[in-house]
């Protein structure tokens, strides 16, 4: 209990994580994707990542001279690992990010062009627990995993889905948006061996309504040992967590607190713990069991 700042979200995080690197990635492509953009980066010495990890990337491409504004890097989930093999190092790995333009940093990022250089630190954070059961001590292999993604939250779910599939889990993916044009990454998820359910609030695509409708269906369909992984806007994660709790299944979420460093030294990314005190989202998370979080205390 002496280390106030390093509570681990769960004992089940994968331990054979690679050390993060810092370096300059090259923009391979940066294209529109639904309501946001898809950024492909070639990262020298990229060691590979674990599903749920993230990178800190510079706001926009770097000029030939330093510009001090905006100052801080931005956290972004690693959507896809391309051309690098799991946690093993390779000379250059390609990764993909999915992002939406919400402010200055992401606006500048959207202006980065092929061949330009972007600062990258990562992979960071603990990923999703995959191999061992979480808190419910049941054998999860073969049991159902329900992945719920809203907005850019789906960026954390693609590699998770692949990893769960490869571990023999039966995977349901629920992607939600306001309308048809809102969904990102749909084509990659369609190519996976998952049951894909899309929801739109206006009914323009897939199921009419919120992601919680198919989630509730999936949870009450009787199967035991399901796990929910929900990543998206806070209200969505809260609602998913509540449904999971009602059905006595574990729910993992990934928090998106503002961050300055991403590796546990600025103490800026604190999220309140259910039992008092704080987690550092970047180091103890960003993945947490929903019930470990004090949702009321989140800004």
């Amino acid at each position, binding site marked *: *209990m*002496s*280390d*106030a*700042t390093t509570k681990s979200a769960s004992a089940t995080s994968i331990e054979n994580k690679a*050390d*993060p*690197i*810092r370096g300059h990635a090259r923009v391979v492509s940066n294209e529109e994707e639904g309501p946001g953009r898809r950024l492909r980066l070639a990262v020298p010495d990229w060691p590979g990542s674990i599903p749920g990890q993230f990178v800190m990337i*510079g706001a926009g491409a770097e000029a030939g001279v*330093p510009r*001090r*504004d*905006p*100052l*801080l*890097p931005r956290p972004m989930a690693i959507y896809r690992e391309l051309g690098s093999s799991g946690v093993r190092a390779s000379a250059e790995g390609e990764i993909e990010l999915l992002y939406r333009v919400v402010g200055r940093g992401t606006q500048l990022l959207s202006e980065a062009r092929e061949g330009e250089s972007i*600062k990258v*630190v990562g992979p960071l954070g603990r990923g999703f627990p995959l191999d061992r059961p979480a808190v419910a001590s049941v054998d999860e292999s073969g049991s159902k995993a329900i992945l719920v993604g809203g907005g850019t939250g789906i960026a954390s779910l693609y590699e998770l889905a692949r990893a769960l599939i490869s571990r023999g889990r039966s995977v349901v993916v629920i992607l939600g948006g306001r309308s048809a044009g809102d969904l990102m990454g749909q084509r990659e998820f369609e190519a996976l061996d998952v049951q894909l359910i899309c929801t739109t609030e206006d009914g323009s695509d897939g199921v009419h309504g919120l992601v919680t409708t198919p989630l509730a269906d999936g949870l009450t369909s009787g199967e035991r040992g399901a796990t929910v992984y929900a990543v998206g806007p806070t209200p969505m994660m809260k609602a998913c967590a509540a449904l999971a709790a009602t059905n006595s299944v574990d729910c993992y979420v990934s928090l998106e*607190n*503002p*961050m*300055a*460093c*991403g*590796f*546990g*030294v*600025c*103490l*800026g*990314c*604190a*999220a*309140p713990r259910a039992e008092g*005190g*704080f987690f550092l989202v970047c180091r103890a998370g960003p993945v947490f069991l929903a019930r470990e979080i004090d949702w009321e*205390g*989140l*800004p």
Partner: protein
Amino acid sequence: MTEAIDESVNFAGIVLRNPVLTASGTFGYGTEFAPFLDLEKIGGFVAKSLTLEPRFGNPPPRIAETPAGMLNAISIENVGVRAFLEEKLPALPDGVVVIASAFGTEPSVYAELAARVSEHPRISGIEINASCPHVKAGGIEFGQDPKLLGELVREVRRATTRPLLVKLSPNVTHIADMARVCEAEGADGISLINAVQAMEVDVETRRPVLSNILGGLSGPAIRPIALRMVWQVAQAVEIPICGVGGIMNAEDAIKFMLCGATAVQVGTANYLDPSSAQRIAVGISEYARSHGFKRVADLTGALETPRE
């Protein structure tokens, strides 16, 4: 051009392999940086400010970005002195120079912290954090009142024979007066500056961005303020100075040395590029060599001023 150059500096009795330290609260407990730089290739680091007991900080949001700067109101979240000495220090490689930072609400608490860390052979010096800009009690109060500051330094000085640094608050009218008080009470060195008290507002929520309302401004935005204070203090005291504030690269660090700093601390830059400190140390040495200095230490105070 390629002769070896003496990079070491003696800062307040602490021999550093080069003048680049990292600033308290921006370098964790050191090990976090092992993937990014060689801890034995920087001058050393000042650990996160310690309190007697482990302590949680402010609720979120704790940080915000401002033009060329960042705002924080962490509020001395730390593992406490015991865990620091028993768990954090032993995890560090042997050659790493560690300076402990002490924070409290009473001079006696600072003194007790100083006494406890002084017993540990791995501690090379103690920095008094008399300047945290966003903790309600303690810290900044000492840093803003010469009388209180004098009492604080006196009491801590009695508690340790180790090199004693005082980190000053920039939120004062006359920084040189504060430095003189520290010198008179037996401090071995001055670190300056801590973050500048500041605020940011979100016009959509119409609320302060930080839960604490006020925070400390750090980063390049404050560098010209820090540089001015280092220069003013260098005119006022004989004890050595460690320059802190917005240092992003070797050029920035050299400016502080020219103004009179013996060493520097790199803070916010560690977040942007966790290898900053090592890169800066190399850059200083290259500058010294290419500009005809025999020793990096000769950069200190090498500013030519038109008058005064």
